[in-house]
């Protein structure tokens, strides 16, 4: 029996992404029809029952977010789909956009109906700009078929979808920065509160959801929230798209039921990762994106669910699983992660802008025999604590997660080059 599941990915690779009829033949737009026979409150109840956790990485319960927005006064309410998939090692939203975009549009239309939104925006990652025209033409087709645009399914409800192209800044994946960028402003995060549900796009109440979250909505309505929940983990229903990358044999996108597979299954099962390439040994894996935790082979039997991973000090995050073999230096790897955050920090708050820069200097020294001291390690700890606790937004707060988790697993590698003694102090601060 297959370890995989086909909810979001149903029809992927079999049905042409722009073929409305074919999509209908596999149940496409049935959920939208069903939704439009329900009240918004009933739909929200189903989403709540499904225990769908936000798939962008923050894992906030979607049903709670929807319910909250439902009770907020103010019109219009906007739907914003976060398609700014910028996490290195994460490419599952691109999979949805390429393979099953109609499922995403259906999810957006359902969300739009729930909040009576006249307009939805898809904020498309700058590097995915080649997808834009194709997506627009599919939107047009769906409009002609009556599933989007004016008077959806002959009702009074109309929804326009606009695609906004990002310009390549990772920080624009942060929801408030994303809204600023959509408004034409500089993509830097906003002070919260007020929350985006209350003061969002163009100051109006706004729902911001990830591509995968919205694409999960149709199946939730078709199956019913309870059934969707049962397919996954009791705390978090349904399936998750994982992006498998790095040194495993079969890299790619896999849709797995939550709470059923272990990390070992994901990396080594012949149906999934298929093990490490070139007969090498697994050294570590990096889960959930650059801001996620580093895992050790000792943790391979952890079940892949939000709850189990959290208990093991790991996280689902974006669904990225980056596998690294024994040839990789952990410090070199962490330097690359750190350089990513240095490059992508918006720069406005001190801990993130300056902290990442100083961490880089210390990582550099840790790689050179005799260059780093115990003081450097203490300073590194201090920087990690400061950035994590005091940064303005999630980017800075999580930028050091990889370092702090890897430090636990690879203490000896961290400290291999460290010396004590005052004679090295000059070098250390230089």
């Amino acid at each position, binding site marked *: 029996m297959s370890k995989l599941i086909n909810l979001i990915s149903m029809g992927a690779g079999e049905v042409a992404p722009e073929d409305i009829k074919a999509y209908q033949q596999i149940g496409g737009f049935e959920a939208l029809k069903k939704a439009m026979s329900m009240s918004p409150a009933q739909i929200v109840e189903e989403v709540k029952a499904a225990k769908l956790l936000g798939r962008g990485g923050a894992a906030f319960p979607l049903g709670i977010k929807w319910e909250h927005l439902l009770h907020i006064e103010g019109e219009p309410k906007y739907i914003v789909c976060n398609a700014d998939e910028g996490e290195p090692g994460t490419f599952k939203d691109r999979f949805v956009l390429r393979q099953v975009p109609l499922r995403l549009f259906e999810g957006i239309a359902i969300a739009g109906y729930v909040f009576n939104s006249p307009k939805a925006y898809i904020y498309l990652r700058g590097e995915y700009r080649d997808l834009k025209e194709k997506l627009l033409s599919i939107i047009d087709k769906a409009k002609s078929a009556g599933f989007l645009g004016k008077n959806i399914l002959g009702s009074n409800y109309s929804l326009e979808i606009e695609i906004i192209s990002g310009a390549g800044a990772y920080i624009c994946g942060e929801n408030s920065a994303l809204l600023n960028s959509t408004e034409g402003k500089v993509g830097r995060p906003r002070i919260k509160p007020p929350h985006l549900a209350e003061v969002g796009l163009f100051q109006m109440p706004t729902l911001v959801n990830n591509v995968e979250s919205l694409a999960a909505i149709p199946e939730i309505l078709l199956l019913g929230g309870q059934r969707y929940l049962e397919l996954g983990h009791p705390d978090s229903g349904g399936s998750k798209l994982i992006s498998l990358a790095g040194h495993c044999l079969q890299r790619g996108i896999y849709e797995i039921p939550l709470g059923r597979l272990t990390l070992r299954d994901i990396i080594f099962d012949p149906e999934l990762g298929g093990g490490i390439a070139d007969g090498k040994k697994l050294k570590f894996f990096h889960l959930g994106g650059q801001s996620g935790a580093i895992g050790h082979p000792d943790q391979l039997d952890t079940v892949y669910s939000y709850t189990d991973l959290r208990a093991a000090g790991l996280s689902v995050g974006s669904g990225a699983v980056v596998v690294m073999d024994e040839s990789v230096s952990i410090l070199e790897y962490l330097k690359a992660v750190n350089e990513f955050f240095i490059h992508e920090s918006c720069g406005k*708050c001190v*801990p993130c802008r*300056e902290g990442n820069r100083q961490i880089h200097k210390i990582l550099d020294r840790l790689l050179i025999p005799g260059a780093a001291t115990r003081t450097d390690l203490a300073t590194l700890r*201090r920087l990690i604590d*400061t950035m994590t606790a005091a940064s*303005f937004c999630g980017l800075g707060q999580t930028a050091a997660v990889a370092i702090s988790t890897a430090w636990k697993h690879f203490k000896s590698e961290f400290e291999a080059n460290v010396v004590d003694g005052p004679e090295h102090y000059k070098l250390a601060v*230089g």
Partner: protein
Amino acid sequence: MSTQKELVNLTIDGIAVTVPAGTTILEAARRANVNIPTLCDHPDLGRRAVCRLCVVECNGGRKLKAACANEVWEGANVVTDNPRIRQIRRTILELILADHPKDCLSCVRNGSCELQALAERFGIRKHVFKVGIPAQEPLLHSGTLVRQMSKCVKCGRCIAACREVQQVHAINSVSRSLSYALGTPYNTMLGDGTCTFCGRCASVCPVGAIYENDQVNDIFDILADPENHVVVQTAPAVRVALGEAFGLPAGSISTGKMVAALKRLGFSKVFDTDFAADLTIMEEGHEFLDRLKNDGKLPMITSCCPGWINFAETFFPDLLDHLSSCKSPQQMFGAVAKTYYAEKLGIAREKIRVVSIMPCTAKKFERARPEMKENNDPDVDFVLTTRELARMLKAAGIEMNNLPEAEFDRIMGESTGAGVIFGASGGVMEAALRTVYEVVTGAELPSLDFEDLRGYHGVKYSKVELPGRTVKLAVVNSLGNARALMQDLRAGKTDVDFIEVMACPGGCVGGAGQPYGSSAKVKERIKGIYIEDKNLPLRKSHQNSEVQTLYREFLGEPLSERAHHLLHTHYHPRHK
């Protein structure tokens, strides 16, 4: 106020506090005498929360909240200080210091720097982090403002002041990550953009990244040259603020001691810009009456404030004919000093050096305008801000507070209360009304105090009854408020005859050249201005005997040809 704000109870470091809903944690802590360190926060600017020094623990959570940007909630348990918080704050401060030049000894903000004060508070004894960015040289913009961006701590106050308060948008945040900077579009000079040189950016900068062009040493030099006859004028707002630099509370009136201190510095004559303010009222009041009588362009808008003039020329070139053609008091003073005064004393114009002490940075820009010169000789040679004067006095070792009071010199040193109140928002309007009313009606005003026009508030309306006509008045301060009113004027939505505009919140007392501080100080200075007004024997400009003599002996009458030549100017659209 009819809406009573709901009260919120919380605990800060174990102290029970009750504050109105909407209060920030930072403000609530201050009310409980808990002093949370801050750097980017400024009481007169919106929330930015970027320095992160004010982080606190709430309800035992590991994630810290910025006290400046989070509002209190019922039952919150806030911890503002413990070893963990202290270490995180220290790390943040060390990170800020990492790429900050450590040249405090030669910095203009030595002793008034907020970063320096934080380093002292945290007991910084060594610099843990280094960055190694080459220092940038200070850059002088239009002879007025200096920007030295390697000292910038990226707190964003300057941008908030420029964008939110003034709505000038001359500077903005640029780039991201390590290149994140606060600067002009495409790194152009301020004078090539929309900058009005109001200096709000400099007045809120916590460090030495933006400041006035310091010309103290130039003044020492011209004073040392025996060939020069150096006269100084002091603006009304200076006398209620200078004392702050010598430890006096804001609003303390130090007119006499300031005059004595200036005499000790060696100025040949110490004159009063108030005299020129009274002269301005004579011209501007008559100009207004002339516009009323002869269907001139109304509303007439005051032209004393150089920041406002730059703003109008940049953003409202279509409304320039609403501006009074009167020069500002500073420039009227310069023009009169280098003609009337020179003639009267028999000193050649080129030997006279006119120095102004102003609460303002834009006055440095104004004095250099081509319209303010005679044969390429500027009417005003140097402008020092209040801050620079304080530094100059300290450099000369003059303890101003200990000096016996002295009087302004004749023949341009007499002041009325009307001249003094030019220093506060609403004052020019009030001074004009005191004279205009009497000129038109021949009768005394029932009351000289126009309370509606006074105070820190940014937009004020009033009216006055003249025979056969109600004259409607509007007073705005800050360029943001001016923009709103000018947009209304452009759209034909205003119903006023006379508008006073001052670029700085509160008027000149809140000028960007004044000792550092927030609006709390400005409000105290406003009180000082009106006390000084009340204390003066004469309170109406046309009663100024020296001004009367000037007209009798030299100018003829208000709006005469000579007055036009010396005391009036014209405006040009900028960047066209």
